[in-house]
């Protein structure tokens, strides 16, 4: 049998591919190349003319202390969010996978947070943890914990980490649950008869069998923390106080849109793009080897 599809009309295959190609070109390659192009230019203060400056934007960028601070913030933020979101969702999925009364209700409730818009999620968390208005914030202060995410940078970072992780848990939960349910029950039973206690069953059988799911979620979560947490940060802290929660993606926005430095901001987004591509490539290169499909 001929493995390749054969089209009698020479144009038809191109026509069929066109929508996909056009979308990729218009929404990815064009903006990306624009960003690269802009990162080599400087715009004047009024936005009337631009000038080609080569790598000057990059040189300036890597000479800024604040950029390294933002990188550090991003590192702490992304590690914490990824670890929190993935471990909690796995825990919840394992518990929801058990045969319990009303299991489907729990499952539905656990999926809901994903439907909440990032800005609303951010505001919700802000309300809860606001030191003078929020229920939990006031409770913490009443309990003698010095809590003020509006002034204390570490508190602010902790709050956005919690909110960002909470937002992602539903998504991860859904995939982990599906992953767990696709593990044949007889494998667990065989392991039980083979003398493996529940904890050992989890780490030697269930967890390795979930590895494709875990790997997929790792890639998705890292992309999520790098790009999609902007709304939450913007709603809760605006990157403050004193840039304590300014991650790389937030800095692109604040320097470019608020600071008016389009060239520098473009350079930042190119660097960010390179980082995420590199991270994803590393994951596929090294982590995927440990995955058994």
């Amino acid at each position, binding site marked *: 049998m001929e493995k390749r599809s054969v089209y009698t009309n020479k144009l038809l295959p191109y026509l069929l591919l066109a929508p996909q190609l056009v979308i990729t070109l218009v929404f990815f390659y064009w903006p990306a190349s624009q960003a690269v192009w802009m990162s080599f230019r400087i715009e004047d203060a009024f936005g009337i003319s631009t000038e080609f400056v080569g790598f000057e934007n990059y040189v300036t960028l890597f000479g800024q202390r604040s950029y390294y601070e933002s990188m550090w913030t991003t590192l702490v933020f992304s590690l914490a969010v990824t670890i929190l979101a993935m471990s909690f969702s796995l825990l919840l999925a394992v518990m929801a996978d058990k045969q319990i009364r009303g299991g489907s209700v729990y499952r539905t409730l656990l999926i809901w947070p994903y439907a909440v818009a990032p800005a609303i999620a951010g505001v919700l968390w802000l309300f809860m943890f606001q030191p003078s208005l929020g229920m939990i914030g006031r409770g913490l202060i009443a309990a003698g914990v010095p809590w003020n995410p509006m002034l204390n940078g570490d508190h602010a970072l902790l709050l956005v980490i919690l909110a960002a992780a909470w937002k992602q848990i539903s998504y991860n939960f859904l995939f982990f649950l599906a992953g767990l349910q696709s593990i*044949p029950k*007889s*494998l667990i*039973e*065989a*392991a*039980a*008869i*083979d*003398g*493996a*206690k529940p904890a*050992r069953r989890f780490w*030697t*059988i269930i967890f*390795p*069998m979930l*590895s494709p799911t875990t790997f997929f979620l790792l890639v998705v979560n890292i992309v999520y923390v790098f790009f999609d947490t902007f709304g939450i940060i913007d709603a809760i802290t605006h990157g403050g106080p004193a840039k304590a929660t300014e991650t790389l993606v937030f800095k692109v926005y604040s320097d470019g849109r608020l600071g008016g430095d389009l060239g520098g901001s473009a350079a930042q987004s190119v660097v960010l793009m390179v980082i995420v591509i590199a991270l994803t490539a590393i994951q596929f290169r090294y982590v995927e080897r440990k995955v*058994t499909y």
Partner: protein
Amino acid sequence: MAVVTLKDVRKVYAGGVEAVKGVSIDIPDGGFCVLVGPSGCGKSTLLRMVAGLETISSGEVAIGDRVVNDIEPAERDIAMVFQNYALYPHMSVYDNIAYGLRNRKTPKDEIDRRVQEAARILAIEPFLQRKPRALSGGQRQRVAMGRAIVRKPQVFLFDEPLSNLDAKLRVQMRVEIKKLQRALGVTSIYVTHDQVEAMTLSDKLVVMSGGQVEQVGTPTEVYRRPETRFVATFIGSPPMNILPGVVETDGRVSVGGQSLAAADMATDLKPGLAVDVGIRPEEAEIAAPGVAGCAFAIDFVEELGATELLHGTIGEGAFVLQVPTGSVPNGTKQVALTIAPNCVHVFDRETGKRLSRRPAEASKAA
């Protein structure tokens, strides 16, 4: 190695469905007990209760002299072979077999010795470093067996282990399982819906239906003397013919207008009582010329090679006769059959129970 005793074991699921309705079986040390029955008869549930994968609603399961009702599967000293093999896909064959021993903190060199020995017995040495997905169905089956034997358990449990194999391999593995069980002498419980597997493997055959035990006995006993109409039609291939009959006097029964002697029919039955009469396809014989017999009208013939199946009717009832090929000239429409008195089985039409001269209890002991 141990005796396995089931005492009035019941399984009632939440919602009140009773899957196993009080089963008592004794399996002697080293015995091979096969649970056979149609799907949904509770045989797998029963096996899983012995394994500890299902809770026991009431009754008692004992392995050796230890009641294991509340003991974890891991502590019961059993090994189980699953229908889908349940091999750990992310582990090599070696690790699959060694897993149970590692969980029990067996010394490394001891594990290696036992895994190699199991691999040698099952002829899977060349595949030890492979992953299960790189193996054929038969090889996976062997690995599953290896995982069971390496632990040297007191009891083997088999849950339809051959049903995922093709017909040829199934016959081959069946023989190997039997040989292996003989060689190791481990008490075994084997669940299947295949009556050929059941007959060939067991030294104790348990026929189940609807959550109850229909009959327990050696394969020959069950075949020769089915206690119920269900067992009669379930064991044996092609299944036993069941014809409507009427009790006559002197231990005779009338089928399709013909009078047959029934050696084992109860003597206290009222003449005229409507009963079911069972006759195995292979046990009726074509009468010699001039000898009177049951009139059998042939509709069509199925060739099986060495034998052929003649489909037709005796009186109003459908009947199948199995005879050596060429016993009847082509185009024969009617033959007379003679049936030996001890090959005529009589069952109560209502309850399906065998109407026997000997009480059921006495025959069980025999």
